[in-house]
């Protein structure tokens, strides 16, 4: 709309199309593109209070995956909504136009929005804010793989920052199945070649799984193994989230 010409000409990205050659991922032994071990997560950076205008917010950075989540409310539900004795949760996930290697439209991600809702609804005490709505909005600034788990974990931190009552913090981790290996916290490149994926969202201190999705072909022992790896990583992640919250709470208020 803003360019010189009124009708925007069609453009294309000069980056080469993804090669069909399958990299080494089939083999039993290979080194991950970022040099991690198969069962090693990316370093996580989390921070609360990224957005001042929101009731609570958090920023998460896992490798190249950068996400901001804002929480608004509890506030008045939309006019059209019927009366409800319990609170409502409203989730929305969107991407920036530059989040992906190829420029996108920056539209809402409906699938992720509903997955985020399902992952959080079990953890939030909706009885604590009757008749009102809590809005959880996420923006993926840059997509570097495992976007949904990062959004979920970041959202639970933002909810805690906003003072919304929860049964426990929610942590989420995914694994990719690449050939014979299970790879935790996959990056974008690994995700695009994966044979299957498993995503777990859980409340570690209650040992409860709030959301689980499996994709692709798996045998039962593999599912078992993958769940074990994920749950371990989730409890570690929850510790990091908790320490981040403590840090914020104990920060000197000078």
């Amino acid at each position, binding site marked *: 709309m803003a360019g010189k010409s009124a009708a925007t000409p069609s453009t294309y990205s000069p980056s080469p*199309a*993804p090669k*069909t050659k399958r990299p080494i991922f089939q083999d039993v032994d290979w080194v991950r593109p970022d040099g991690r071990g198969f069962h090693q997560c990316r370093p996580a950076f989390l921070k609360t209070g990224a957005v001042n205008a929101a009731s609570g917010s958090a920023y998460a950075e896992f490798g190249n995956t950068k996400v901001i989540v804002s929480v608004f409310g509890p506030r008045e539900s939309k006019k059209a909504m019927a009366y409800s004795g319990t609170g409502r949760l409203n989730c929305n996930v969107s991407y920036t136009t530059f989040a992906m290697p190829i420029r996108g439209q920056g539209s809402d991600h*409906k*699938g992720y929005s*509903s997955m985020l809702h*399902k992952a959080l*609804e*079990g*953890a939030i005490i909706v009885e604590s804010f009757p008749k009102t709505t809590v809005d959880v909005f996420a923006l993926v600034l840059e997509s570097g793989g495992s976007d949904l788990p990062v959004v979920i974990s970041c959202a639970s931190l933002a909810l805690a920052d906003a003072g919304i009552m929860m049964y426990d913090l929610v942590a989420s981790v995914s694994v990719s*199945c690449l050939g014979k290996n299970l790879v935790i916290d996959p990056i974008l490149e690994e*995700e*695009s*070649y*994966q*044979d*299957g*994926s498993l995503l777990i969202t*859980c*409340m570690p201190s*209650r*040992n*409860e*799984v*709030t*959301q*689980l*999705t*499996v*994709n*692709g*072909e*798996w*045998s*039962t022992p593999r*599912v*078992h193994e993958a*769940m074990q790896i994920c*749950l371990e990583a989730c409890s570690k992640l929850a510790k990091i989230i908790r320490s981040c919250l403590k840090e914020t709470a104990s920060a000197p208020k000078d």
Partner: protein
Amino acid sequence: MVGLSVGEKHFIQGGIAQDLRTDGRRRLTYRPFNVETGVIPQANGSARVRLGGTDVIASVKAELGKPSPSQPDKGKVNIYVDCSPTAAPMFEGRGGEELSTELSGALQHCLLGGKSGAGAGIDLSSLVVVEGKVCWDLYIDGLVVSSDGNLLDALGAAIKAALTNTGIPKVEVAVGASGDGLPEVDISDDEYLQFDTSGVPVIVTLTKVGRHYIVDATLEEESQMSSAVSVSVSGQGRICGLIKRGGAGLDPSVILDMISVAKHVSEQLMNKLDSEISAAEAFEEES
């Protein structure tokens, strides 16, 4: 929504706890179901599945298209589900939209496998006509005619039946037309290719009510659920997809237990469905 009195709720929950549900079934028994194929003559394949009070139709349409550049050796499949306003008053207007998206997403998740195409119920590479140039696009549409719970399992079964019923016209590629443009193809009118649907998984949904879980829940029973796990299992007993619904958390060991139960149930369901489908196909050919 189902409006139940406290007494009715107790009756349902108590029945499930004692392994005798309100309609006389046990916890792991399906309702009797009925498959009809070839219900929509215009489509390449179609089927209608009635599972108790739940009634769904699935149709498959095939069109020639261009494969996506990232996967030149594979065809494309679209799954879309529509909830008819006749099925339930809450589907009127835009009310059915959310459920439609959820069901479409769940079916894609359960039937299409991982990103690399591994574990897909439908063999996408058989849909390619000319690599990188021409392929078949399958449009799978589901329609919920009447809803009495367990829509996902019913839709999964209907899609499997519709795919079995699908004939894709044989395509001749004109020789010597290779070049930059699209190759010329000749679609045969009387020769059809049948799909191999033995790999298409069935979906088993286990609904947790109280401390127990049941298969094939009715709408009333679904209103009492705390959470549900849908597992899609292929004929070889491998898991092709899994989705959890409902807000309440589950213990990881319970989930693993549910997976093994779902696998067990799926074997019976698969056999039953296969025999129903072949009976329906035989019936269709006769008439």
